[in-house]
């Protein structure tokens, strides 16, 4: 069912090479660290070495008073306030730099300036700080401990929010069930780890009167709005530019205190400043991700059909609510997504968003869903194992069927369209479970055990207005704009407020333009990430840009095409109905043609050649929203074959298969790349990445020597099949797909490892599945009994 793509296709569906790669691969582009200004100062932040303390006394080093700045030195500045509208939400104000108290290791306390970063760091070490230490809240289990101090003033317990869902009749389900199972799952905290860390350059542009903020961010317009609010400035006094951004995955999708601090200091002093995050800062002080715990009880009939689902979900959101997502986002996503692709109608769950003295939790590829997918997909396998059924068969009995769409889920979402069973069958066909018996035979008598695992995921993408309103965020991201211009020599320049940080959007948006205008993608320039270039827009996150910006570009191009056809028809002396756009020309039915360059020349330099009804110029600004607000739902099934060394606990991935549906595919090669990148991160969550904290709130992985990301040897080349059912609610039928690859790997790999260990009576339900944990699982008492 793979998409048929003609090799020479340049528009939607063509695997054309990425336009942006030449500059990236040859190292010619400009990242934050490449941006200088005359007289620029390098910034080092003095960061808290303790998890929880009142700052009793701060003192600048003698002689360096003009190069060290505390909060009081920054002028009028509001803290970052990310309030959820959910009733019962507890507020946390996040100051640009510490306001008398520090709440996690790594929180900025002072800005220190030097001519070199080294000089600034030395200065930071010379600042005197007197900490009055408080007990730290370092674990979810402590959030309701009355003996620990509140992290924020006025809090009665260290919990941001508790929310509940209760639909259908869970008690009836329990009574009717042939099987009720309870399982506990943990997905531990991790860092996000973009190749390029965060970074900010600020300076004053005296000519325009703007405070210019270069930031390695995913959403410059939104950052401008937020900065204006916190600084009490007009938006027109601020320009925010995201230069080349070296990966982000969500970690650059928050308003950072560092952005606010540098902007405020430049406003106050006029100094040009540059802060380039180092890896230690990135690991300890950038937003973290995951840290979910679940207790799931499922009620099923004798055939494995789920009758009801109960869950308690706990998430450690860290010390502050991040803007604009708010602290309860993770738990909110988890509770909404736990029913997954299954037609579950009775569902009762509680989601607790705990606060702790750890770095705040922010969005990371998959947001909430990797945890929810882990919990529900592990549970489906447990049902299968308990009833002696095939795990794919159990899933097929429970999926929402193709004739049930649109499906209103027990988690409060509306699924638009899909064939989940088709993805599971396709993944199963690729992984070929029938070979497992032979493999087990082959390794009999050795320490190696073979296992196979599946996981199906849903990826809500391009969420519309209603979804964001429902989530109660401070900003509603329901649309996107694009502004396009044809130049006087017939090239197309598209200014979009999204940000391309590795997704290939400069290429895929040009492919959309090709379909609308017949223009060669090589003749299209996509500019992004600059509030001075593009109209207002929301940026790149939540797998939205291809749908939303693609839609806006499509609408703008469609309007421009109409104008071009009018001019072309006039120049060719035929009626408008008789011309079409093809290969960079307007072509008449009879074959006569006029190139775009000639049309652009007429539109700009020879208005005398234009028909009376057409205005000069070839510019269009358009905005786009999806036909319905539910989001476009991608989904898929991952299947993995593993070998577990029961001597050492090491897991080796022998084969990996993905069958997924992301609707119409704009560029299959780029989609494959996104899948592989997501998979690499999913494997990181499953097997390697963990950000542990000590009991007193010290992060224990602050370099790459301790924080392990998978490298090339750990990531197999997956086989990928595209199913491609177009979305009914988006232009072109596109569904977003940037996150999907990262969602199910922890679930699929953990299912496979458990499949391998089950004959030994061992079970493991915590990520990362380190060899140490696997050996412990093998040595647990129940494992010994079953193995004996």
């Amino acid at each position, binding site marked *: 069912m793979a998409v048929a793509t003609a090799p020479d296709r340049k528009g939607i569906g063509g695997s054309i090479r990425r336009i942006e790669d030449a500059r990236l691969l040859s190292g010619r582009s400009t990242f934050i660290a490449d941006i200088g200004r005359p007289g620029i100062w390098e910034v080092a932040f003095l960061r808290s070495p303790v998890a929880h303390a009142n700052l009793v006394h701060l003192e600048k080093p003698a002689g360096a008073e003009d190069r060290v700045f505390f909060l009081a030195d920054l002028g009028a500045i509001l803290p970052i306030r990310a309030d959820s509208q959910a009733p019962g939400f507890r507020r946390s104000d996040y100051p640009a730099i510490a306001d008398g108290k520090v709440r996690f290791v790594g929180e900025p306390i002072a800005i220190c300036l030097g001519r*070199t970063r*080294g*000089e600034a*760091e*030395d200065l930071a*070490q010379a600042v005197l700080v007197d900490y009055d230490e408080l007990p730290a809240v370092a674990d979810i289990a402590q959030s309701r401990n009355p003996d620990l101090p509140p992290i924020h003033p006025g809090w009665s317990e260290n919990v941001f929010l508790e929310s509940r869902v209760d639909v259908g009749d869970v008690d009836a389900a329990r009574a009717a069930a042939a099987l009720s199972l309870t399982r506990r799952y943990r997905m531990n905290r991790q860092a996000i780890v973009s190749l390029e860390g965060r970074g900010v350059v600020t300076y004053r542009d005296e000519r325009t009167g703007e405070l210019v903020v270069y930031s390695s961010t995913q959403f410059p317009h939104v950052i401008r709005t937020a900065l204006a609010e916190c600084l009490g400035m007009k938006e027109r006094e601020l320009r925010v530019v995201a230069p080349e951004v070296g990966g982000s995955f969500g970690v650059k999708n928050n308003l950072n205190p560092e952005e606010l601090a540098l902007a405020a200091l430049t406003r106050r002093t006029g100094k040009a400043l540059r802060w380039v995050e180092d890896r230690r800062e990135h690991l300890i002080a950038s937003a973290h991700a995951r840290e979910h715990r679940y207790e799931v009880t499922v009620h099923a009939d004798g055939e494995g059909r789920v009758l009801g689902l109960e869950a308690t979900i706990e998430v450690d959101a860290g010390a502050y609510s991040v803007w604009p997502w708010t602290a309860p986002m993770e738990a909110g996503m988890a509770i909404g997504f736990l029913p997954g692709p299954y037609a579950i109608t009775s569902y009762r769950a509680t989601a607790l968003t705990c606060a702790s003295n750890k770095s705040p939790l922010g969005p990371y590829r998959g947001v909430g869903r990797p945890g929810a997918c882990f919990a529900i997909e592990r549970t489906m396998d447990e049902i299968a194992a308990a009833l002696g059924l095939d795990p794919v068969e159990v899933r097929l009995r429970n999926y929402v069927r193709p004739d049930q769409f649109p499906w209103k889920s027990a988690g409060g979402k509306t699924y638009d369209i899909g064939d989940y069973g088709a993805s599971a069958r396709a993944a199963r066909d690729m992984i070929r479970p029938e070979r497992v018996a032979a493999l087990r035979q082959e390794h009999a008598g050795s*320490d190696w055990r073979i296992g196979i695992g599946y996981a199906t995921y849903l990826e809500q993408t391009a969420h519309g207005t209603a979804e964001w309103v429902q989530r109660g965020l401070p900003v509603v991201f329901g649309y996107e704009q694009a502004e396009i211009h044809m130049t006087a020599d017939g090239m197309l320049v598209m200014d979009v407020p999204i940000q391309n940080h590795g997704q290939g959007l400069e290429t895929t948006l040009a492919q959309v333009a090709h379909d609308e205008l017949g223009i060669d993608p090589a003749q299209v320039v996509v500019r992004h990430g600059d509030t001075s270039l593009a109209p207002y827009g929301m940026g790149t996150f939540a797998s939205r840009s291809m749908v939303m910006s693609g839609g806006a570009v499509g609408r703008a191009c469609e309007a421009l095409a109409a104008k071009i056809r009018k001019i072309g028809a006039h120049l060719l002396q035929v009626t408008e109905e008789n011309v079409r756009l093809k290969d960079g020309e307007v072509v008449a039915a009879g074959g006569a043609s006029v190139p775009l360059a000639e049309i652009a020349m007429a539109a700009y330099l020879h208005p005398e050649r234009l028909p009376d009804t057409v205005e000069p110029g070839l510019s269009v600004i358009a905005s786009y929203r999806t036909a319905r607000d539910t989001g476009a739902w991608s989904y898929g099934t991952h299947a993995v074959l593993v070998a577990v060394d029961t*001597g*050492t*606990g*090491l897991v080796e991935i022998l084969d990996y298969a993905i069958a997924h549906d992301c609707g119409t595919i704009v560029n299959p090669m780029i989609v494959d790349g996104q899948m592989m990148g997501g998979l690499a991160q999913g494997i990181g969550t499953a*097997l*390697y990445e963990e950000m*542990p904290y000590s009991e007193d709130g010290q992060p*224990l*992985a602050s370099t790459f*020597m*301790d924080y*392990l*990301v*998978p*490298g090339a*040897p*750990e990531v197999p080349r997956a086989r990928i099949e595209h199913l491609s059912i177009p979305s009914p609610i988006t232009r072109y039928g596109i569904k977003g797909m940037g996150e999907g690859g990262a969602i199910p790997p922890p679930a699929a790999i953990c299912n496979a490892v458990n499949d391998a260990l089950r004959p030994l009576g061992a079970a493991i339900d915590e990520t990362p599945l*380190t*060899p*140490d944990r696997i*050996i*412990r699982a093998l040595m647990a008492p129940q494992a010994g009994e079953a193995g004996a």
Partner: protein
Amino acid sequence: MTGFEIVEPESLEEAFRLLDPEDPAVRPIGGGTALMLMMKAQIYKPERLVSLRRLDGRFSGIDIAADGSGFRIGAMTTFSMLEHSPAIRRHLPVIAQTMKTLANVRVRNVASVGGNLAHADPHLDLPPVWVALGARAVVVGPRGERTIPVEAIFEGYYETSLANDELIAELEVPVRAGWDALYVKVTTRAAHDWPALGLAVSAELEGRRIRDLRLVLSAAVDKPTRLAAAEAVLRGAEIGPATLRAAGEAAVAETEIESDSRGSAAYKQHLLRVHLGRAIEALAAKRV
């Protein structure tokens, strides 16, 4: 990073004058790969670094004795030179094998044999291998020269028996006919991780009987450590599951292994048992 000077003496006498037995802010520098990391992390703040780059003579070169009985390796020999030396590949293949998973080309091009030993980080791969091979280090200082077994360099975590103004000048490595060696780098997470334990084995086998052997554990302990009790179990014994299990238990009993991010103590003890057995089996398999 505060300023410091780097000097490049051309003679040993000059080097000793520039070094300072009392001042920890003065240190020799070989390839600089370890020192630079500590300086960037502000763990080490030097005032003067004394480069050994221009001290040729005994500090450089890889020479094999005329009778083939051993090597002399200058302390400033880089890992790449070792890795690509045909003589080393032929007579000490375990060195080339170890290089395959040691750091990366850029580090191997500059990291030096002497700096690697003097750094005394127990996670490093080569030190246990040198110990297993029975290598000796020639240490020179203003008060004279001494030759010590490599294991005698290490006193603990990042601690050595070298005085501040003493330098490792060269290594003497015997080539023993009939002996074979193997190094096992046990990473428990990604391949580029530091090892949870390193295990170097050299042995003289006769079929499946072990005539003699040296077993060295690193990474899981605070310095490369001979496993004398485990050696005693295996010396003269026939390789079999029971003997290997007994050797593993002896190894666990004679070492003090601590927990860290690469695994709990119990887990690393478990790994030691498993990998000791597998290493001996692998060595035996190589022989046939």
